C-alpha cells in the first residue's frame, strides 16, 4: 500500500515535470551586436525567465551592418525571430514587407502607450496600430571639455546656453598655430556625425522654419529660415572659424583627443567618452536661440513582434515585450547601456534629472523630435553634400539648400509606396 502511494506520487511527480516541459515555450529574440546591449539583454532575459519559468528566450545577435539583411532574409526563408529589435526609421520598410504584426491591444492598450511613453513613440504608429515599443531612447546634447574651457578663460560650471553664447565660447576656445592651422577647435563640425540631425531638427526650427511637413514626406526647409540655418552652420567654419570639417578626421575623435572644446553628440557616445582620462568633460542641453526656442533630435531602437508568431509563442512574446518595455527593464538598460528610459516616469526621476550627465539629455527629450526617415543613409548624405558644396566648392548657401531639398525630396518620393 505504502509502496503504491509512493509509486503514485512518483508518477504524479514525473507527469507534472513532463507537463511543465511540454508547456515550456521557447521564443527567439534578435538584436544587433553591441557589447553592452547584449549584456543588458542577457540580464533582462534572466530576470524574465525567473519570473516566467515556463518561457525560455533565446537571444541571437548579428553585426549591425548585416542586421537588416539578416532579418529580411530570415523572413524570406520562413524562419526568424519572434521578437526583434528595429530602428524606428526602418518601420515603413518592415511593415511593408510584412515582417511585423501590430501590437495586440489587449496587452498594449493605446491610451497606456500614449500616456506613459515619451511622445516620440508615435514614430512606431502606422494607421491605427503601434508596431513596437522602445526600451530606451537617445537624444543629443552639447559635450564640453572643462580643461579647455578653463584654459580659455571660460567658466566650466557655466556652459553656453544660447547659440550666441555657444559661438562666443567656441571663438574663445579655438587655438591656431603661427601658420594659422587649427590646433584646438572651438567646436567640432561634422555633418556625417550628429550635426546633420542638429541642423535638420534643431537649427532649422530655431531659425523659424520646419524641416518637413506632411508627416515628413515633404521637404520644407528650402525657405529663408532654412537658408539662415545653413548659413549659421557653414559660417561657423568660414566666418567665425571656430572649427573645420574633417579636423582630426571625425568630430568625436577630435573631442576624445582633447582637441575640440565642444561637440554635439548623443547618449550613445557616453560609453566611448567615459574612458577619457586626460580631461574632465561635462554635458549641457543643446543651445537655445534668442527667444528661448529649443529642440532636439531623439531616436531609438524599438522591439516588435514578428508577423508570423502566433499561438502560445505569441502569448509568450507579448509577455516578454511587456517586460522589456517595463520601468524595471529600462532601469537595467540605463545602468548597463547608458540609454535613457523610454517611459516618462522611469526617466524623469529626481535622481536621473539631477544627474549631471543624464539630466541634460533627459531635458532634451521633453522637446525632442524624431525625423521619419525613408532612407537614413541617403538623406544624411544629402545634408553632408549640402554643407560640402558650400564649404568646398563655394556654392551659395541658397543654391546648395535648394539642390539638397530637391535631392532629398526625390529620395522620399522614390520610397513612397506605389
Amino acid at each position, binding site marked *: 500500500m505504502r509502496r503504491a502511494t509512493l509509486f503514485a506520487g512518483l508518477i504524479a511527480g514525473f507527469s507534472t515535470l513532463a507537463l511543465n516541459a511540454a508547456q515550456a515555450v521557447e521564443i527567439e529574440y534578435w538584436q544587433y551586436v553591441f557589447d553592452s546591449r547584449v549584456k543588458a539583454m542577457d540580464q533582462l532575459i534572466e530576470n524574465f525567465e525567473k519570473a516566467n519559468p515556463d518561457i525560455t528566450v533565446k537571444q541571437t545577435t548579428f553585426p549591425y551592418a548585416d542586421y537588416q539583411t539578416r532579418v529580411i532574409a530570415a523572413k524570406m526563408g520562413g524562419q526568424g525571430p519572434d521578437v526583434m529589435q528595429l530602428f524606428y526609421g526602418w518601420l515603413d520598410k518592415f511593415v511593408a514587407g510584412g515582417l511585423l504584426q501590430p501590437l495586440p491591444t489587449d496587452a498594449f492598450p493605446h491610451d497606456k502607450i500614449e500616456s506613459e511613453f515619451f511622445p516620440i513613440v508615435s514614430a512606431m504608429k502606422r494607421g491605427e496600430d503601434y508596431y513596437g515599443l522602445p526600451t530606451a531612447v537617445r537624444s543629443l546634447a552639447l559635450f564640453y571639455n572643462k580643461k579647455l574651457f578653463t584654459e580659455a578663460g571660460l567658466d566650466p560650471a557655466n556652459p553656453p546656453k544660447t547659440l550666441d553664447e555657444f559661438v562666443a565660447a567656441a571663438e574663445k576656445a579655438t587655438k591656431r598655430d603661427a601658420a594659422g*592651422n587649427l590646433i584646438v577647435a572651438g567646436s567640432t563640425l561634422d555633418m556625417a556625425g550628429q550635426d546633420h540631425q542638429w541642423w535638420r531638427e534643431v537649427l532649422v526650427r530655431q531659425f523659424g522654419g520646419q524641416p518637413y511637413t506632411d508627416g515628413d514626406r515633404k521637404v520644407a526647409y528650402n525657405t529663408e529660415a532654412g537658408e539662415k540655418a545653413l548659413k549659421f552652420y557653414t559660417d561657423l567654419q568660414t566666418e567665425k572659424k571656430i572649427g573645420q570639417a*574633417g579636423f582630426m578626421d571625425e568630430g568625436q575623435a577630435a573631442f576624445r583627443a582633447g582637441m575640440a572644446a565642444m561637440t554635439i553628440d548623443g547618449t550613445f557616445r557616453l560609453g566611448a567618452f567615459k574612458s577619457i582620462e586626460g580631461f574632465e568633460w561635462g554635458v549641457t542641453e543643446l543651445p537655445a536661440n534668442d527667444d528661448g526656442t529649443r529642440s532636439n533630435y531623439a531616436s531609438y531602437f524599438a522591439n516588435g513582434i514578428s508577423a508570423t508568431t502566433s499561438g502560445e509563442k505569441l502569448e509568450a512574446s507579448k509577455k516578454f515585450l511587456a517586460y522589456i518595455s517595463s520601468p524595471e527593464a529600462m532601469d537595467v538598460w540605463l545602468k548597463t547601456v547608458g540609454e535613457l528610459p523610454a517611459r516618462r516616469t522611469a526617466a524623469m526621476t529626481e535622481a536621473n534629472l539631477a544627474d549631471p550627465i543624464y539630466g541634460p539629455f533627459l531635458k532634451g527629450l521633453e522637446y525632442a523630435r524624431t525625423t521619419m526617415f525613408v532612407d537614413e543613409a541617403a538623406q544624411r548624405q544629402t545634408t553632408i553634400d549640402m554643407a560640402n558644396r558650400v564649404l*568646398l566648392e563655394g556654392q551659395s548657401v541658397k543654391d546648395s539648400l535648394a539642390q539638397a531639398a530637391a535631392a532629398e525630396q526625390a529620395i522620399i518620393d522614390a520610397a513612397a509606396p506605389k
Partner: protein
Amino acid sequence: MSVTADQQGAAVSRPGGTFWERRSMRTKRLVWVWSFLALPILFYSVIRFYPTIEAFWLSLTNWDLLKPPQFIGLANYEKLFADPQFWKVFKNTFAYLLVGTPISLLLSFVIAYHLDRVRFMHGLIRGLYFLPYLTTAAAMAWVWRWFYQPAPIGVINNALGTIGIPQQPFIRSVDQALPSIMLTAIWAGLGFQIIIFMAGLRSIPNTFYEAARIDGLGEWAILRKITLPLLKPTTVFLVVFSSIGFLRIFDQVYNMTTNDPGGPLGSTKPLVLMIYQTAFSSYAMGYAAAQTVVLFTILLFVSLLQLWILREKK
C-alpha cells in the same frame, strides 16, 4: 548481404567483363577527366554563372528584398542613365582606370627593370616592395587616411608644414581626393606587378642580350628591341589584371572615406561603391543589379579591347 553482392558482381564480370571494363581506354580516360572537371564546373555554375544570370534578370525588376520581384522592363537602366550621380561615378571609375593603370605599370616596370640589376640587398628591397600587397587593404587604407589628415596629426601635412608648403586638404578636397586614393591603390598593387615583371624579365634568355651587346647595341635599343617585345605576354597579363583591379576598386575608397562614403560630394566614389550603397544601404536590389550589369559590360568590353589591341600580330 554485401558478400553476396560482391559475389554476384564478380560472377557477372567474368564472362564478357562489366559495362565499364568493356569501354575503350580512351572513353575511360574521358569519363575520368570529365568526372574531375564536373566538380569545378558544377561549382562555378552554382556559385558564379547562376547568380550572374540571375543578376541580369533582377536588373529588370524592382526587387527590394521584401516583396517578390516585379518585372519593370528597362526602367532601372533609364533611371541609371538619367542619374547625374551615375555619370560622376562612371567618370571616377574611368579616372581610376585610365590614370591608375598606366602609372602603376610604368612605375612597376621601371622599378622591376632596375631591381633586376641590383645585387645588393636584392631580396630585402624586393620584400619591401611586396609587403604592401600582403597587407589587408582595410588596415592600409586607415593608415593612409591618417597620413592625409590636416596638420596636428597628419604626417604628410606636418612634413609639408616644416618645409613651408601650405596645408593640403587631400581627401577632404573635391579635387585632390581621387588622386590621393589612387596613389594608395597604386602603392598597394605595386609589389605584385614588380614581382610579375621581374619574372618576365628573368625568362628572357641571356643569350639575346649577349648577342645584342656583341653587335654593339646600346642599352636603350636593347630595351626597345628585345626586352619590351619579349615582355609582351607579361605586359598583357598585367594590363588586364590591373585594369580589372582599378575598375573594381572599393576597399581603399570605402575605408578611407567611411564617414562620407565616396569622398566629399562623391568625388572618389567608384561604381562598385555605388552598387554597394544601392544594394545594402537603400536595399534597391533591382537598381543595384542594373548597375552591376553595367559594370560587367564595362569590364567585359575593356578586357576584350585590351586583348585585341595587345594581340600577337602575325
